């Protein structure tokens, strides 16, 4: 099994619309979930015999339960505004990766079974019968969309293309044709509590090890508390923060901030995961189950606040969906006993949930943190807006806070900050290439090619402005960048957690 060499696209002055290469990514399809990955999520173990009827029935069901599903499938006028906005299209040149064309794979089937013209004159309107080939095509191309929603920004009708990808994946799961990476991970969350499958004792040992490092570094007993009842804050963070580089340095940064602020906090071994891949697979029931673990932990530990660590889609789920999923913040159903309990328990003076960047920003504003920016003088830093934070959330209760606050925190702890090309940032930020449940080795070619537009903007500031550090607030972005940077002749270690920068700049008065 020799490793296949992946040829990264060449970087150019500007990203140009590529010459179309039909079918260039038709071979890219992730591993299919095994029966045990499927069944734990209440999906059929393998492709059911009557997959055709089941898939259409699932579409019927989605049509009834999700207003957006039929709306987004009905209203597209094929104007083409989205075509060149997708990083996967720009990086692969496969025309089926134009968002409108990718959606058409599902829309053409929907049209055949659910519209008047499609039912009676399918050839006139490009409506297609669902075949096994089409099902395979869905498995391939709906795993070439990272649900980043950049194309939606440019859609004059406001079609949320990610919703269509999510629906397609939900249909695939319903007929027993799921994706291994996502579903295996979700199984681990439900069984063990996190994406990694990191059991409680291993988590405890890891945190103790990190406490030792923090003490070596600062001479202070900076804590990494786990399952401590009565703490004020429950920190929910992606489990990559317990395992991978550079994530773990960010986790140590949070600990330093909590320590210096003198605020009691804890993590939970039961809810040791911020990520919620239930969103990626478009399955509401799974997303709710994963989110409910956090509610359970918050109730058990009796915390007053919930703070979310550096994870892009976790923050989208927390900010946009937790209220109705679990009653965090406002929106708990009157008959949802535990949601009501949580609303009463959480301190209304703080945002619920709160992002760790909001938390740190607030402390900085109030002068609580003792900061020496020159500690980061050896770096020139740029920031990558993560798609789910940029286009799926807010921060700090101010307009565009999700862009302003991370930058203010970074600029508060570093002297040398450089912005990448504005047309690749903010609302128009480019996906890292590994989001939306695609951060798996079996999609490495897609990930390398899809990173090209972001790499292009980064390479420019790398070459011209001496940027040597790329900061991010998403576990997926961090892992994806450390993997793809070398393909574009940049060092893998330049990717950094925002809270590593914060942690490095904090000054501790050592009492020793």
């Amino acid at each position, binding site marked *: 099994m*020799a490793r296949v060499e992946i040829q990264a696209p060449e970087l150019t002055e500007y990203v140009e619309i590529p010459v179309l290469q039909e079918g260039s990514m038709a071979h890219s399809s992730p591993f299919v979930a095994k029966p045990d990955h499927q069944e734990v999520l209440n999906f059929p173990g393998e492709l059911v015999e009557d997959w055709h009827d089941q898939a259409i029935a699932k579409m019927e069901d989605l049509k009834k339960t999700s207003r957006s599903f039929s709306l987004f499938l009905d209203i597209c006028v094929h104007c083409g505004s989205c075509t060149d906005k997708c990083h996967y299209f720009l990086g692969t040149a496969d025309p089926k990766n134009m968002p409108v064309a990718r959606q058409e794979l599902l829309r053409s089937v929907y049209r055949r079974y659910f519209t008047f013209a499609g039912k009676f004159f399918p050839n006139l309107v490009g409506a297609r019968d669902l075949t096994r080939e089409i099902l395979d095509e869905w498995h391939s191309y709906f795993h070439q969309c990272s649900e980043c929603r950049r194309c939606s920004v440019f859609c004059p009708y406001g079609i949320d293309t990610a919703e269509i990808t999510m629906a397609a994946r939900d249909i695939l799961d319903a007929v027993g044709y799921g994706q291994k990476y996502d579903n295996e991970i979700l199984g681990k969350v439900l069984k063990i509590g996190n994406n990694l499958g990191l059991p409680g004792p291993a988590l405890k040992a890891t945190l103790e090890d990190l406490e030792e490092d923090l003490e070596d570094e600062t001479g202070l007993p900076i804590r990494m508390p786990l399952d401590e009842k009565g703490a004020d804050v429950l920190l929910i963070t*992606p489990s990559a923060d317990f395992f991978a580089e550079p994530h773990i340095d960010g986790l140590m940064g949070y600990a330093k901030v909590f320590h210096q602020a003198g605020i009691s906090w804890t993590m939970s071994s039961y809810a040791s995961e911020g990520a919620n891949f239930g969103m990626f697979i478009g399955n509401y029931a799974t997303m709710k189950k994963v989110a409910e673990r956090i509610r359970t932990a918050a109730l058990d530990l009796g915390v007053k606040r919930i703070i979310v660590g550096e994870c892009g889609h976790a923050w989208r789920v927390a900010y946009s969906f937790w209220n109705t999923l679990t009653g965090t913040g406002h929106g708990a159903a009157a008959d949802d006993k535990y949601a009501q309990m949580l609303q009463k328990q959480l301190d209304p003076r703080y945002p619920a949930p709160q992002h760790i960047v909001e938390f740190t920003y607030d402390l900085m504003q109030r002068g609580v943190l003792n900061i020496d920016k020159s500690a980061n003088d050896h770096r020139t830093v740029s920031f990558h807006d993560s798609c789910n934070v940029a286009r799926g959330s807010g921060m700090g209760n101010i307009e565009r806070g999700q862009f302003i606050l991370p930058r203010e925190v970074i600029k508060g702890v570093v002297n040398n900050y450089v912005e990448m090309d504005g047309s690749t940032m903010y609302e128009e930020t480019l996906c890292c290439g590994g989001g939306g449940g695609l951060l798996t080795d079996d999609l490495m070619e897609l990930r390398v090619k899809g990173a090209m537009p972001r790499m292009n903007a980064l390479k420019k500031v790398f070459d011209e402005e001496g940027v040597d550090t790329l900061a991010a607030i998403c576990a997926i972005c961090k892992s994806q960048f450390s993997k793809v940077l070398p393909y574009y002749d940049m060092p893998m270690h330049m990717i950094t957690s925002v809270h590593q920068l914060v942690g490095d700049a904090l000054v501790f008065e050592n009492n020793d």
Partner: protein
Amino acid sequence: MPSMDVNGSEVEVDEEGYLADINDWNREIATALAETEEVELTDSHWEVIDFLREYYDEYQIAPAVRVLTKAIGKKLGKDKGNSKYLYELFPYGPAKQACKIGGLPKPTGCI
């Protein structure tokens, strides 16, 4: 389930070449797995692999990269306690490549 041939006997692996059953593992299999990864095993590699397997026995998961580098540094000297050293040994990343050769399941998640 795919399999690989190790000195005439079949060993079950998953699609990505990770051992299906950690208990199947032995040193010959590790050497064969390393070959598929184009890694030539030296004593330095074995030191890491042995540590990983010990850690796995205790915790049912591979250690965090930071924990691994620190432990290797303590055991084998400070010059080896850094991720650069580990990446030199296992260019595809110590977490995944060393786990694979050591017969451990593939770490999953946003890593």
